[in-house]
């Protein structure tokens, strides 16, 4: 890759040589990236330092999400796992409902009262984590909540198939689960929900990563016979029955 340092001569002869000798560049950023080639992108293609800066910014973004999902071990040891889980959700901007109490929500600025720290023996009944940045490691804080009945993970950007495979720990108590609008959840993650045998309400509407919403809903309904599944209208996927054959990802050596 031919590049130079920022302070040297202008890049008049440097074409974007992303292509390596012998092989053409495989990564052509598509979709939204093509719409506006920002100045940073333009510079990053030509100068090592700018590319390093952008990689550092990307790394910082990922670190921020990791920081939000850390384990609150001292709260856990002092107040117990239920309070720690509630604190975690409130810190993320979600809402918590203890058994027999009202919903506790943080204010617009993210502040919340610490009254719930006194509720030591009361289990958490429902969690509304819509839009929160919960990810795989963050679920560590939620799994000890053994009496959780209702979990709403609508529009969570970092909840993916891996997270769904961890939810089997809540199988005894969980009765309601909502995954509507999660961009990273696909039918492969939904297949893990068969562990949740007590589930009565499941919302899988508006999942952009699911290839065939109608067929997926039918298969999930078959998998969880006691559960009411809300999702896409199943007739939606059957418009042109002949051309709507589910596309199997057939790639070589797929074992």
């Amino acid at each position, binding site marked *: 890759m*031919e590049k130079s340092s920022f302070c040297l001569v202008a890049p008049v002869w440097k074409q974007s040589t992303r292509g*390596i*000798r012998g092989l053409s560049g*495989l990564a052509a950023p598509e979709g939204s990236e093509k719409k506006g080639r920002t100045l940073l992108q333009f510079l990053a293609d030509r100068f090592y330092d700018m590319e*390093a800066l952008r990689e550092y910014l990307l790394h910082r973004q*990922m670190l921020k999400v990791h920081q939000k999902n850390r384990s609150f071990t001292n709260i856990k040891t002092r107040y117990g796992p239920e309070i720690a889980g509630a604190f975690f959700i409130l810190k993320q901007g979600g809402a918590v409902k203890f058994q027999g109490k009202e919903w506790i929500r943080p204010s617009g600025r993210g502040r919340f009262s610490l009254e719930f720290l006194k509720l030591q023996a009361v289990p958490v009944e429902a969690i509304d984590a819509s839009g929160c940045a919960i990810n795989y490691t963050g679920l560590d804080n939620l799994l000890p909540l053994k009496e959780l009945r209702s979990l709403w993970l609508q529009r969570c950007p970092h909840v993916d198939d891996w997270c769904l*495979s961890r939810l089997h720990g809540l199988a005894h108590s969980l009765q309601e689960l909502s995954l509507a609008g999660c961009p990273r959840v696909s039918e492969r993650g939904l297949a893990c929900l068969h562990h949740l045998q007590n589930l009565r309400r499941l919302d899988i509407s508006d999942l952009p990563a699911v290839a065939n919403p109608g067929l997926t809903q039918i298969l999930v309904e078959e998998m969880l016979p006691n559960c009411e599944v809300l999702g896409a209208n199943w007739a939606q996927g059957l418009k042109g029955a002949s051309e709507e054959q*589910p596309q*199997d990802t057939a790639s070589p050596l797929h074992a």
Partner: protein
Amino acid sequence: MLVATQGTVLGGTVLRGAMLRSLLRLAVCRGLLARGLGTRRGGSTWDWDAELSNVKKKIQSILPGGTWDPLYDTRHLPPERSDVVIVGGGVLGLSVAYWLKRLEKQRGAIRVLVVERDHTEYLAVVDAPPLDLQFNPSGYLLLASEAGAAVMESNVKVQRQEGANVCLMSPEQLRNKFPWINTEGVALASYGMEDEGWFDPWCLLQGLRQKVQSMGVLFCQGEVTRFISSSLHMENSSGEVVTLKRIHEVHVKMDNSLEYQPVECAIVINTAGAWSGHVAELAGIGKGPPGTLAGTKLPVEPRKRYVYVWHCPQGPGLETPLVLDTSGAYFRREGLGNNYLGGRSPTEEEEPDTGNLEVDHTFFQDKVWPHLAQRIPAFETLKVRSAWAGYYDYNTFDQNGVVGPHPLVVNMYFATGFSGHGLQQAPAVGRAVAEMVLEGSFQTIDLSPFLFSRFYLGEKIKEHNVI
């Protein structure tokens, strides 16, 4: 000179006639050249635009960063010098390249070249969409008969110690959970509850390739045909002479031509998969009296394996894990449309010929289908949709990988011979080899039982329940 030769033509011998012919040819060429020059000087057909763009291109290529070589275009050739040459650009080779670039002490400290004959948080690249491996977290379900139940229990114990969430199920529990299984002959089953499943290897390969390219690793398409090395004879403490070899150059031959590029290198990493045995032979490994360390070959050879895809309308549902039967037959779901994918490893006697990648459908009829239908009655009616074959880099010694340097060829490192497990072990092995190269010893994962020397010492590491 011409005049003198012409003078001797009439009385000349055959030898002189030949000389005359060659000299005449030379003269004719020179004459043509003279005519050519003459035309250029005097000609009036002059394409300005084309000439100008040609000149521009030449200047661009001559300036620093271009590909100008005084003799001819070298864009397709690998560089003349590289610190590490990785032979084989599969998942293992790319993993080693990734970890070398990730663990290097300074940005751009090590120049890595990956030579490939044929042509995804950690793997996040700026401006590229996040890597999607198509991971199915549905887990593996391994079935054991009476004979294998004890081994399965001890395996599960080890897995749990390492943090895997695996549960053991009795035939009764199995029937409750998966009613479509016929539990006859099954004594115990182990089921992975989380973080276990299957993914698309092609996606991982592409993701690794993109990430590794963005980290500055060079790629080249070619075949390694030769190693130029130097030998050093040393005496060990008991007075025997030991020959240590060091590879200095790798000859990379281009496709469909005799052209090759000698690449000077410091370290060679053999991740050529099923062809690692051949590459090791090129480096002189195994060329010695049998029974000595010098005469121990790398026991990796290609073995053909078939994979079949079939459709079964009443087959097991969405929750199906990858099921591995007591007979060695395995299958899993593929997509949403009740298609299934599976196969079985043949026994030693049934090993197919590795000359080509043709699929043997009778193998499915006779050796795979009966076992599947016995275990899952719904599979009695199925229709095979497609099939393909691929090579395992099969380690004939103990079916486990070879990792680390060769004791005699001091700068060749291996990461091959995983016999079908290369994909799942690639990220860890890549890191181990990169650490071995950069630090001189294994740091995070100790893979010393997998060194080459075990072939000479005869110490097999066997794993039970292998697909």
